[in-house]
C-alpha cells in the first residue's frame, strides 16, 4: 500500500467547530474523527446539530476553533492560496445547490473548470457536455437555475462539484426535498462514485454525506456518525446503528420502523 493511500483523507483531533454565521458559538466540540480514502460516511443529526458546519470545516472552508484538522495530510490551520491544490481535491455540494443564478446550468458546471484551468468556453465544452450527459442534464444546459426544478438544481450542483474530479466529495443533506425517483437516482449514483466511476478514472471516491434522515442510507458498506449535544458519536456500520439504544438515532430511524411495521 502506498503512503498516499495510508494518509487519512480527513483527520480531526480534538477539533471544535464554530457556527458558520456566528464564530463565537461552538457547534461541535472535541471531534476525533478519521476518514480513510474510499470510505463512505453518513453523518446524521437533527436540525442545528452542526452538520453543515462540520462539512464546511471538512472542506477547508472554515478553521477549527480548537484542535487540529488535516485534509489529505495537510494541516488546514494556515490554509490559503498556496494550499489551493489541496482544496480542489474536495468537492462540496450545499443543501439546495447554491448555483450561480446569473449563469446557465452549463455555465455553472463549466465555471470551476474554466477558472482553475484557464480555459475558454470552447475548450471546456467537451468535458462539460460529457458530465451533463452523464447526469441527464443536457436538455437543461442553457437554462438558468431559477427556471429549473429543485430536483435538477441539486443534480446540477453535483455536476459542478464533480467537474474538477475531486477525490473527496462532501454532500450536505443531498436528498432533502427531492422526489422519490431522484432520491433513488442519487443513491445509485453515489454508490457508483463510491465504487469507482469510469468517468473519474475508476478510482473509488471518498464520500461524506450529512443527513437528518437515516432511512435512505441503509447499507452495510457505509459508516455512520451522529452529531448530538455538540459531540460526534462514531456509530460504526449499519448493524450498530440499528442496535444502538440512543434516542436520537431511534428518532432518526423511527420512520423506518413505522414503514417496515406497516
Amino acid at each position, binding site marked *: 500500500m502506498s503512503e498516499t493511500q495510508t494518509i487519512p483523507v480527513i483527520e480531526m483531533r480534538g477539533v471544535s467547530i464554530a457556527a458558520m*454565521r456566528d464564530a463565537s458559538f461552538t457547534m461541535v466540540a472535541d471531534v476525533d474523527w478519521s476518514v480513510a480514502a474510499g470510505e463512505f460516511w453518513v453523518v446524521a443529526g437533527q436540525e442545528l446539530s452542526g452538520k453543515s458546519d462540520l462539512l*464546511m470545516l471538512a*472542506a477547508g*472552508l*472554515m*478553521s477549527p476553533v480548537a484542535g487540529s484538522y488535516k485534509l489529505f495530510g495537510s494541516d488546514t490551520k*494556515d*490554509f*490559503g*492560496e498556496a494550499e*489551493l491544490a489541496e*482544496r*480542489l481535491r474536495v468537492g*462540496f455540494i*450545499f443543501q*439546495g445547490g*447554491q*448555483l*450561480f*443564478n*446569473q449563469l446557465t446550468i452549463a455555465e455553472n458546471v463549466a*465555471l*470551476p473548470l*474554466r*477558472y*482553475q484551468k*484557464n*480555459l*475558454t468556453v470552447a*475548450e471546456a465544452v467537451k468535458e462539460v457536455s460529457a458530465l451533463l450527459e452523464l447526469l441527464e442534464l443536457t436538455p437543461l444546459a442553457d437554462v438558468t437555475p431559477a427556471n429549473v426544478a429543485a430536483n435538477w438544481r441539486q443534480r446540477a450542483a453535483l455536476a*459542478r*462539484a464533480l467537474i*474538477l474530479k475531486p477525490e473527496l466529495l462532501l454532500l450536505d443533506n443531498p436528498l432533502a426535498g427531492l422526489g422519490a425517483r431522484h432520491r433513488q437516482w442519487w443513491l445509485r449514483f453515489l454508490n457508483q462514485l463510491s465504487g469507482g466511476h469510469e468517468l473519474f478514472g475508476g478510482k473509488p471516491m471518498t464520500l461524506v454525506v450529512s443527513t437528518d434522515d437515516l432511512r435512505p442510507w441503509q447499507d452495510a458498506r457505509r459508516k455512520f456518525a451522529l452529531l448530538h449535544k455538540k459531540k460526534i458519536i462514531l456509530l460504526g456500520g449499519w448493524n450498530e446503528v440499528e442496535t444502538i439504544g440512543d434516542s436520537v438515532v431511534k428518532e432518526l430511524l423511527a420512520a423506518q420502523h413505522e414503514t417496515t411495521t406497516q
Partner: protein
Amino acid sequence: MPAGFYAAGVRGNLAKAFELTNTQLLRRAALPKSYTDLLGRKLFLALLTVQGLGAFALITLGVILQKNTTAKNVIRPRIRQEIARAGVALLPMFFFVALALGFLVIGQTVSTLAKVGAISYLGSTMVIVVVRELGPLLAAFLVLARVGTANVIELGTARALGEVEALEALGIDPVHYLIVPRVIGMALGIFSLTVYLIIGALASGYLFAFLQDVPLTPGDYFKQIVESLGWLDFALLALKTMAFGFFIAIVTCYHGLAQPLRLEEVSRVAVRAVTQGIVVCVLIDAVFIVLYLVT
C-alpha cells in the same frame, strides 16, 4: 475586531474576511440615551465604515495586482461585460444628458457672457465648469445610480443566497471573480462616459448659443476651449474619473459582499451604499480641486 482579521480571512480566501460585526452590533443596538451618545455612535460607525472600505479597497488592489494573469479566459470576458454594462449600455442616456447639460447650463453661460462682453472668458469657463467639475461628477453620479445600485443588489442577493460560499468551495476567489471585473469595468466606464459627456455637452452648448445669435464662430469657440485646456486637465480628468469609478465600485461592492445579508436587508443596504458613494465622490472631487489649485 481581532488583529490580522482581514489578512487571515483573505489568506483563507473567505468572504467573511470583510464582515464587520461591530457595525451590525451598533446598528442593532438600543436607542442612544442622549444626543452626545448618538453623535459618538454615528462617528464610531463612520470610522468603522472607513476602516472597512479602506481594507476592502487595499485587498481589491492587491488581488488586481497579484492575480492579473490568473484565469484570464474567465476574468477578461467578465471585465468586457462590466465595461459594456458601466459604459456602452449607458451611452444613449449620456447623449441625452450631454444634450440637456449643454442646453440648460452651458448655453445659458455662453449667452450671459456674451451679454456682458466677457466672451473671451468663455473657454476657461467651459473648461472649469464642464471638463473639471460638472462632467466627471455628473457621470459618476449617473453610473452610481444605474450600475452601483445594481452591484449592491446583485452581490447582496448572491451573498444572501450563499453563492459567495459556493465560489469559495470551488476554490474561486470571490474578490477576483466578483469584484475585480466590476472595479476595472466601472473605472474605465466612467472615464469613457465622461469624455463623451464633455464632448457632447460642449457641442450642444454651442448649438444653444448659436440659436441665441451669440456672435461666436464654431472655430473661435473651440479655439478658446483648446487654449484653456492644459495637459494637467487631461491627466487629472483621467485620474479623477478612474478614481470615481474605482471607489464607487468599492463602496457598492463592499456593501453588497462584505456583510452577511438577509434578503430583506438588501434594499436598505443599497440606499446606504448610494449615499456613501455620493459622499466619497464629493470627497475625491475636493481632493482634485486642491490638486488643481496647487499645480
